């Protein structure tokens, strides 16, 4: 509140800032304890460093892979595939979801198919993907697309159906054109839910890219892990896993930021 007793827009409540710091602190602490437990387990197991590498060995090889550029190259390859597949899914899935949400006929026609295809794991498509798209980027991108497309369509459809019908009457009252109904009503109204869907979907896409790279390609973090296994370099396997985890955190963080864009904030206070 400012002097006039009006609530000010951009103030962060104190308790939110404090819990924010606490999350960072306890996050660091939990990672630290995992490393300690890992070290203890590695020592207690008595297994060789080739079977169960200790943290120090992994750190050393991490630096090695970072220096010779391997890690960066594979990460870029994986991110590229996720980005393309994910974007395609969003660019096709959100418009389709809007159509389905607005059109009962389309919904009754397509929904059964979508709900039939959705629970099929994208990994089940691997043989077909390889047959249709050969090897290289296309089959991997196709799998990521499949994994992201259905959740985006379903999430968007539900978001559109959830729009308060009063808002459409307001649009009719103010003589919105179809285009205005889309840009001034539907898109902003579904924004908060679509962002939630994006956040969940990007996680799925990231899970799938690693699996996809274990079959059809010669690059990417999935390939790095598979290749390291063939070479019996469990420390490289662990490096791959660590990078996957870090990138996953980063992607989620980006999506969370997106949710904090001011125009989508209204969703936090409604419903």
């Amino acid at each position: 509140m400012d002097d006039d007793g009006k609530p000010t827009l951009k103030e962060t409540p104190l308790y939110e800032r404090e819990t924010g710091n606490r999350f960072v602190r306890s996050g660091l602490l939990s990672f630290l304890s995992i490393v300690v437990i890992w070290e203890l387990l590695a020592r207690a197991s008595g297994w060789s460093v080739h079977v169960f590498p200790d943290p120090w060995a992994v750190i050393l090889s991490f630096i090695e892979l970072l220096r010779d550029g391997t890690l960066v190259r594979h990460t870029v390859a994986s991110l590229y595939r996720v980005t393309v597949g994910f974007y395609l899914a969003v660019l096709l899935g959100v418009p389709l979801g809007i159509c389905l949400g607005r059109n009962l006929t389309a919904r009754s026609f397509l929904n059964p198919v979508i709900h039939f295809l959705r629970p099929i794991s994208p990994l089940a498509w691997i043989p077909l993907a390889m047959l249709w798209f050969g090897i290289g980027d296309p089959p991997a991108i196709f799998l990521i697309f499949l994994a992201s497309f259905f959740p985006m369509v379903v999430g968007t459809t539900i978001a559109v159906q959830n729009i308060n019908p009063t808002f459409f009457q307001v649009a009719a009252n103010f003589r919105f054109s179809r285009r205005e109904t889309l840009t001034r009503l539907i898109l902003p109204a579904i924004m908060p839910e679509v962002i939630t869907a994006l956040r969940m979907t990007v996680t799925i896409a990231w899970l799938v890219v690693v699996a996809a790279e274990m079959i059809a390609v010669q690059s990417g973090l999935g390939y790095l892990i598979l290749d390291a296994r063939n070479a019996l370099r469990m420390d490289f396997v662990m490096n791959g896993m660590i990078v996957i985890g870090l990138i996953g955190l980063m992607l989620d963080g980006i999506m969370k930021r997106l949710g904090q864009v001011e125009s989508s904030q209204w969703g936090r206070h409604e419903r």
Partner: protein
Amino acid sequence: MSHIQIDNLTKIYVGRRTQPRTMHDPEEHSGDNVLVLNNINLAFEEGEMVCILGPSGCGKSTLLRIIAGFEAPTYGTVKVGGRKVRGPSDQSIFVFQHSGLYPWMTVYENVGLGLRHIDDEEDKHSRIQEHVEMVELEGFEHYYPHQLSGGMQRRAELARAIAVNPDLLIMDEPFSGLDFLTHMKMREEVVNMHEFLRKTTLVVTHDIDDALIMGDRIVVLSGRPSAIKLVHVLDFPRPRNFEKDPGLSRLRSEIFLMLGVPYAV
């Protein structure tokens, strides 16, 4: 000629499971069909403030939605300004019972909705500002609806409606959910607005005192299926006061009786 002319209006909601092609008998509301409005005839004059009273669920909102063009009558016609209503229009702006403000737009953007076709940015800005000030929301232009109190939200929606300069203003229970003082202030504001702009205004309310204080004309509907119980022109001087005006006070007791409450408390 009357501004709003309603002739033989009947509304039947057809249930989803049974959808007969023809309805021979409008009285019939068997099965899933609900007869909501039964043969309503009304005429309102230009510039009048009409208050519509009736028990909850009797079809007051339905009547307003039909006048606004959001729904079609089952039988009969509704004419506004001599022309048959065929659909929503920016000449009849509806103020919704529960907020119709777009929550993703600021007060300023909401009020500007009806002015979006004005090309001259200066003119547009000054007209938005004028209406924001009219409902005393200056300083809150860039607030989102969820950052405003209930009364402020109603005022913002009122400003948005008036900014279009419609011929007809339709308000569905504009004071419901407001606390007592906000209710009184808002009522005064609507009356002042009407004195100033002289637009035909329809207000649905379930508060008899609101209707008697505000209306140039009151309409009392019976329970479902709704028929008209009373249409009365109120030519009592303003500001109105039940204590000082025995005629008003008598009418009040009469309406209470009509709506099934024998003693006006």
